[in-house]
């Protein structure tokens, strides 16, 4: 069931488009912001609310990088693997994160604290290497800076 808050946020966005199903990406992002990810149940509820077929909505969901169709940890780390960050030491940063958290890309720590995902260029190339944790951008990374940043997410 979508919450009343989710429904009112979706309806506010829906008013921006002449067709109701056009809001489906915004709708999935809204639900994800409340629940962390878009489960099968959420997908059904959103599709029903917008009068779309579940298959159509899922084909949209799976196309987009920022819509999570699998559960994620409390915090999502997105590390930029594009060219400027790669030149500036992406491999070392990914290895450091992997060792420290004991997980690889696409995995979640056993305490459910962090999920580690690769992301394309974050538009922070002059301060590479860079990553985002939830809504926060962290740049000019080195292993110590990564450690300090991670401590602030519980």
């Amino acid at each position, binding site marked *: 069931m979508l919450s009343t808050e989710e429904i009112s946020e979706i309806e506010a966005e829906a008013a921006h488009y002449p067709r109701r199903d056009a809001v489906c990406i915004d709708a999935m992002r809204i639900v994800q912001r409340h629940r962390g990810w878009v489960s099968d149940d959420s997908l059904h509820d959103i599709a029903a609310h917008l009068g779309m077929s579940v298959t159509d909505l899922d084909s949209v969901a799976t196309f987009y990088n*920022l819509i999570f169709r699998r559960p994620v940890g409390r915090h999502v780390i997105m590390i930029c693997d594009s060219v400027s960050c790669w030149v500036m030491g992406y491999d070392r940063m990914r290895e450091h994160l992997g060792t420290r958290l004991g997980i690889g890309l696409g995995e979640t720590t056993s305490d459910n604290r962090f999920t580690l995902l690769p992301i394309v*260029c974050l538009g922070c190339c002059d301060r590479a290497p860079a990553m985002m944790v939830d809504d926060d951008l962290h740049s000019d990374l080195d292993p110590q800076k990564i450690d300090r940043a991670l401590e602030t997410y519980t």
Partner: protein
Amino acid sequence: MTPVTDKPLTKNMRPDGSVVDIRAYEQADGYQAVRKVLHGGMTPNAVTDAVKDANLRGRGGAGFPTGQKWSFVPLGNNAPTPTYLICNADEMEPGTFKDRLLLERDPHQLIEGMIIAGFAIEADVAYIFLRGEYVLAAERLSRAIAEAYDAHYLGKNILGSDYSLELYLHLSGGRYMCGEETGLLNALEGKRANPRSKPPFPPVVGLFGKPTVVNNVETLCCVPHIINHGAAWFHALGRTHDAGTKLFGASGKVKRPGLWELPMGTTIREILEEHAGGMRDGVTFRGLLPGGASTDFVTEEHLDTPMDFTAMAKIGSRMGTGTMIVLDDQTCPVGMTWNLMHFFAQESCGWCTPCWSGLGWVERILTSMEDGQGQPGDLDKLASQAKMWGPGATFCALAPGAAEPLQSALKYFRDDFERHIREKRCPWR
């Protein structure tokens, strides 16, 4: 009026990185161009002509003349309604970080540009299509849009005129193809961001089947200044015929990576050596991608070329987004090419076989080369793939864009590719 500046796009920006709010923007002569258009009796065609005379070319990478694009939109009482204006703020081209600055630091400049562009094409509704990761930009834009509505720069009968415009912010679900003009239209309609066949072109049949103009953030930000100061002034800002200023950037192992507003036509060398401070100690320059991942590498011999659309095309590359990515001697050119092909392979929408299947194959060949498994025929295979992605061979410009760094890496760093195969290892590992 305050004295006319030679850095119109960044003149209001604060060193502490905070946002220019509506009051500060107005104090710096902001929204004067909107007043001039709406209260000064300019017609839509007069606005378009001013932009044409200024020779404003699209800053999204392709350099299409902006006024010409606007003039394709049907105007008048018999035109289909609504007409849409879209600001492309997807900025997912690897190595590109210019629109972020304009969005985060001076959002009203963009809004003012959109009102004027909207007036020129008689747009009823406008969207800013913003990439989802630009959280700070989203916050600041939302606030700026609300401020602009409160001050009657947006909504019904703007500043008491006959012109009305609604402006909405859309956050992307995240995919490189959303930045491609027609992929963007599908994304905004709530579909997968596959491109559409052209013709018909978006100015005639676009969003929800209606006339639509898609322009880049930086393009739209130039518009208020052209209206305020005129075409001759805009030409005089640039050093070459491709007029105006441009946000140029540099990333990689340079001393001072960054972003600078400079005259169009500033040479690559000046950007690299004076503004970026040259290479860091201990590394030497090998080449650079001038304007994002989908532009051809250039090398030492090209450094005195002016960065503009025309001159960069003459040396077999493109200015692209104007943010250069520098390759140094401590970084493996094959590895860098692999990284780029990995990106394109992952972001291909899968519509055309040469693109999705070819990119996957190229990525595998480069992986094996890096792992010491390269084969003597590999370079020919890579070169023939790059040819198959040439303009016209695929449905959109992603594949031709991917061909550019690949073909030029094979040309300028051939010895390095051959060494990988001969020595059966990556010499940089």
